[in-house]
């Protein structure tokens, strides 16, 4: 009997302690929870709600219009162009910027010297202001006085209007995007490469992996899996979010040839003040990012962590 009552007292104390622990945990997490609610969840819900209204900035009232905004999107030529351009841009920028970054990272990692220099030089586009750099690109790609076309002219080749012709504008913006993303991806790959145990390369050499390609297939590629997944997601998201170069260099022109999703949202919401429609486009944009991320994590994550 004595034992039992002691046990009861013990378990009571135990429960009380768990309660205070739980409280402490909640208290510690509270600032982050509040910030999350106020700054992420609430705006998201607002966008979600606005997407089904005809709200315009400055209007006295608004009405729920159901799926009218989404129906309008299907008829909207600008929106169609911006979706098409955004994905074309991403398909061009993502593989190239990842491939080039990986190649450069391996070369730099293998090289005996200059690692810090190359890393800093190639990272420069990431830390420099895009708007300022856009001016430089505008000059470089200028149809008549730009150095690119001067060189092409000297070589006897054609001199396209890089940012002014609808068949070239997306390619030009794509190159600038690659230039921006390579440095960022490179630094991530270099970190990933450094984390690969040296012993694995020794083992591969002893096992008879003679060519650099064989060692790459046997060690580097599989060991870089988690980094690769992260880089793909980041580059994909960054590409879909392209805005500042487009806005500063082409304003979506000529004739919507470089109109992209984020610029469409910006135009609709802050230029025409059509908040309802802008919110609806934003939802489509968020859905794209979400779907891409889900596909990648669900499909690939299992294959890159060898736990």
């Amino acid at each position: 009997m004595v034992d039992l009552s002691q046990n009861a007292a013990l378990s009571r104390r135990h429960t009380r302690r768990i309660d205070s622990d739980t409280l402490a945990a909640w208290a510690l997490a509270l600032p982050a929870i509040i910030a999350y609610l106020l700054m992420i969840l609430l705006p998201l819900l607002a966008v979600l709600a606005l997407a089904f209204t005809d709200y315009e900035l400055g209007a006295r009232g608004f009405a729920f219009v159901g799926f009218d905004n989404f129906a309008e999107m299907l008829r909207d030529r600008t929106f169609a162009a911006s979706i098409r351009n955004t994905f074309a841009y991403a398909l061009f920028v993502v593989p190239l910027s990842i491939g080039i970054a990986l190649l450069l990272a391996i070369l730099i990692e293998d090289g005996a010297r200059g690692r810090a220099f190359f890393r800093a030089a190639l990272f420069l586009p990431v830390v420099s202001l895009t708007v300022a750099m856009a001016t430089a690109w505008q000059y470089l790609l200028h149809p008549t006085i730009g150095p690119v076309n001067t060189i092409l002219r000297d070589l006897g080749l054609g001199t396209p209007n890089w940012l002014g012709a609808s068949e070239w504008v997306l390619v030009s913006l794509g190159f600038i995007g690659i230039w921006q993303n390579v440095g960022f991806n490179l630094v991530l790959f270099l970190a990933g490469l450094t984390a690969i145990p040296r012993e694995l390369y020794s083992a591969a050499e002893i096992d008879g992996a003679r060519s650099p390609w064989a060692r790459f297939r046997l060690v580097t590629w599989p060991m870089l899996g988690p980094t690769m997944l992260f880089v793909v997601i980041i580059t994909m998201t960054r590409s879909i979010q392209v805005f500042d170069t487009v806005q500063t260099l082409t304003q979506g022109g000529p004739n919507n040839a470089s109109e992209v999703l984020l610029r469409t949202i910006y135009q609709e919401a802050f230029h025409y003040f059509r908040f309802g429609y802008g919110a609806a486009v934003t939802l489509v944009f968020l859905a794209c990012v979400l779907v891409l991320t889900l596909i990648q994590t669900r499909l690939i994550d299992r294959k890159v962590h060898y736990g």
Partner: protein
Amino acid sequence: MDGIVVSEVSKRFGDTQVLRDVSLEVGRGEFLSLVGPSGCGKTTLMRIVAGLEGVTSGTVCIGGRDVTATRAADRDVAMVFQNYALYPHLTVRQNISVPLMMRRLRPVQRLPFAGWLSPSVRATLGAIGEDVETAARMLGIGALLDRKPAHLSGGQRQRVALGRAIVRNPSAFLMDEPLSNLDAALRVTTRSEIVAIHRRVGASTVYVTHDQSEAMTMSDRIAVMMQGVLLQVGTPDEIYGNPQDLRVARFIGSPSINQIAAHAGPDGLLCVGGVSVGLRLEKPGNAVLAVRPEDLHLASQGLAGRIEHLEYLGESLLAHVRLTEGAETVICRLSPENRTRLRPDEPVHLAFDHGRALVFAPDNRRLAARPLPSALREVARG
């Protein structure tokens, strides 16, 4: 010579000389341990034999072939790494088959689905599969073949690493501290398993370790290295009983060999604190008298001292005795019965077998010491 021959190899990393004129021969089928404290250059020497590191000067021959300029992939050596270096994305079966795939298939044939297209590739893959099964059976990891390294225990990973090494019958076998990541009990059992596997495979083996007990129990011969220099190569017996350098004597044996500062007078008689110990050197001067703990015993006269403390180990009793002459504390391995009659602080006298005492010069060189005839010894003592 068929095994591994390292001649006058030196290695320098920048300003640091890691190896100095190291020469070493490992006979065909011999098991040689390379032992020394960490940073002594033993792993570098092994990596040079493997071909993972170049030499600054000197040559390496394996199986009668000069391989100094041959890259590791073409040297026909297998290596077991300290952290096993298994490919984490491959199953055990794939890990063990990698060296065979790399050697028996051309790059094109290693592409996925090549086995579907070409009957010869299919045949090779089949042979590889059988060899992998054989190796896995020999190591008792047949049931683990479809697991990934992350799902294996330390001991199992170690076996997979061994499997990857033995599967292709290399002419030399290199092991870099393969047991250092295992717990103590597993280390002892794996030790004898590696010896058994070596006996079956029969390839020349270089085994790097910092653990002198591994070296003593496993090897045909031991090479003791310190600060990039090979101090002595010999059978475990020679290294233990007849070390040619004080550093070798100190490194091998546990507890460590006792060192007592001594001095030889003009007549060459070796004295500790003015008392003769019954040994004669060829030349006068300072010296170090080194005696193994088990060679010291209690006597009615001899080196006087006082027991500091006693350690009872079950099969023996270690007495730490502070000598009256000189400041040294020596350890003396006694039979366990002494436990009941010895007490700390008790004055004792220690004697030793003169045939087993070792004398070294201050520069660590071994000195020849002759025991005095017993009559003379009595006189010297009186």
